């Protein structure tokens, strides 16, 4: 029994917490991304490793330096910038010149995150902001894809990787069109088994749908991701592209192909579901996912680009605050609009 003079601590209720914390959620997202990252390095060898490392280092360093420059304690310990760095690296073509990777990494964090006020305030997914700027600035380099699983991938680099800044990159490695480009420009389909396992070309981390889904399931199981978002994106893509495919299978790709190709799986699981940029209510999440899915199919089918997931998610991010405002749940004890009128 404590002494009579013992001081008790006084706080206001609640006195217990659920145990979730921002840093543990973010760290678990990093964990969920590790299999995809490892596969990217396995598939693209040194080029993949250097691209991902440069992406990660440039993002983390930018955040750290901005915090230092603005006189705030560094925020790299909350793991959120690690996610940005990894996701950004995973969306890049593995042969992208490293200086471009670094420029994009700075843009991700400085423009996509710090400018808006840092964690929690960024309207758009920072990784996609950096990627979108690169896509506009370096359209050729951003759409030059090397083949994965080449024999010398762990001993040699594509010459483009080490291109000096502001010089034209030359690509000597075996280049290879992505499944979506093959379909768009020559109507060739890729076997779904190859798409799901990742034995195709593409951005570093978007090729293996199975590993992406595994990472997503891990986060859903731990209640660290809203399953409604990936499910509604994939469902919207499947339904819309399926309907088009039924109309004319020679002009419109099959829905299964659409789901497993390009950046859809990575975008749906890890980028659209980013908590900061996605709606908070269930109905908002369904609509947000449906919008992203529909825009993706529209860009892929009728747009000039073979891939549209990035722009679809950025558009979804922009609509999120409106979805949150329009679909606020009815508060207990307040009449519905119909009942009130």
């Amino acid at each position, binding site marked *: *029994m*404590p002494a*009579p003079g*013992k001081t*008790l*601590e*006084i*706080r*206001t*209720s*609640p*006195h*217990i*917490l*659920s*145990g*979730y*914390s*921002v*840093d*543990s*959620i973010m760290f678990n997202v990093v964990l969920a991304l590790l299999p995809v990252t490892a596969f990217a390095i396995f598939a693209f060898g040194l080029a993949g490793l250097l691209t991902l490392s440069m992406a990660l280092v440039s993002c983390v360093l930018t955040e750290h330096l901005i915090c230092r420059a603005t006189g705030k304690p560094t925020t790299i310990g*909350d793991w959120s910038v690690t996610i940005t760095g990894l996701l950004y690296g995973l969306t890049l073509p593995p042969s992208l010149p490293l200086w471009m990777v670094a420029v994009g990494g700075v843009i991700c964090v400085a423009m996509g995150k710090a400018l808006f006020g*840092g*964690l*929690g*305030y960024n309207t758009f997914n920072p990784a996609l902001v950096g990627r979108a700027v690169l896509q506009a600035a370096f359209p050729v380099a951003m759409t030059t894809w090397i083949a994965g699983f080449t024999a010398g991938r762990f001993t040699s680099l594509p010459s483009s990787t080490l291109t000096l800044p502001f010089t034209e990159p030359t690509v000597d490695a075996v280049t290879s069109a992505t499944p979506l480009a093959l379909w768009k420009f020559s109507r060739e389909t890729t076997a779904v088994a190859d798409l799901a396992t990742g034995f195709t070309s593409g951005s570093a981390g978007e090729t293996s749908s199975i590993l992406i889904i595994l990472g997503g399931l891990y986060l859903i199981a731990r209640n660290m991701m*809203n399953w409604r978002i990936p499910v509604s994106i994939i469902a919207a893509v499947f339904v819309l592209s399926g309907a088009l495919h039924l109309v004319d299978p020679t002009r419109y790709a099959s829905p299964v192909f659409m789901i497993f190709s390009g950046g859809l799986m990575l975008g749906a699981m890890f980028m659209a579901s980013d*908590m*900061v*940029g*996605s*709606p*908070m*209510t269930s109905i908002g999440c369904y609509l947000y996912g449906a919008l992203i899915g529909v825009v993706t199919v529209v860009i892929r089918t009728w747009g000039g680009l073979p891939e549209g997931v990035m722009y679809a998610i950025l558009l979804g991010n922009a609509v999120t605050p409106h979805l*949150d405002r329009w679909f*606020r*749940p*009815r*508060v*207990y*004890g*307040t*009449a519905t609009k119909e009942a009130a009128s």
Partner: protein
Amino acid sequence: MEDGTPCPLDTSTPDEIIAAIQEAGVVGLGGAAFPTHVKLKVPEGKFVDTLIINGAECEPFLTTDHRVMLEQSDDIFVGIRYLLKVSGAEKVIIAVEANKADAAEHLRATFPGDLNGSVELLRVKYPQGAEKMLFAALLGREVPSGGLPLDIHALCCNVATTAEIGRLLPLGRGIQERVITVTGPAVKRKGNYRIPIGTPLRFLLEHVGVEEDVNRVFLGGPMMGGAASSLDISITKGTSGVTAFTDSAAERTHSPVYPCIRCGYCVDACPIFLDPSLLGRLAANQEFSVMAERHNLMDCFECGSCSFVCPSHIPLVQQFRAAKAAVRKAAAGKTGAT
């Protein structure tokens, strides 16, 4: 103990019963300690059709309702008869959480044949024991924003309160003791105790034994209970539990605060569908009137679920309490000026 004037069930009028309840000093024993006789006065033009007896524990950790239902069912049924007579309700529903199936079974087995009513099992989900939640779950009715249960013809009374009415009124006694859950990581002999009102907290804790390094003691449960500033205070009628934590068990609430990441956990957690995330941002900017006028701040009953789930450890409900106080103060200032 000397008995007062008994208030027999059969021969007393509703007004006499209400007076006897007031005389006995019965208040809501769930923790709010709202005077029961005030709640029972049904104004002219209003009526009650359903009486709900709340056996859904108001807080995690607390088990007083459970023990009362198992050990005082006879008192509860007598109390129900008094309450039905006073309120004019046609039927009674005893609400029990699904994890207390033994209590529900016992009440069903002893349910008097001439009483119109039932025992209902409810999902175990804090804050199920809040009366607003019970009305929605059992009757599908919502108390209007700013209104009273009477507006939806319902009346809710805690099981322990009901049992006390049933025990005291026939004898004409006043309330002198109550059942209290004494629990928490710092307590050695956790359990439910019948404690005389006015017992010093220190005496109670000495009796049940607490760890040397106890550093936080709450009157009530861990979600809504107030922190005791000293052990030299007394147990009151509103003390439904005493929860004690040690230094080591309390570390969780010392976590750093992060910015809101819009995860939506609080939006899912809020039992009355407020947007705690938005209210939190408004509170940080001291926009109290916007919170009250446009975002239903005053409907918040401070269950604390939003703060409990927040991964950024933002003190949401704490800010809402302060905001509500500020809004009430501003309103009082206005009426005072006219």
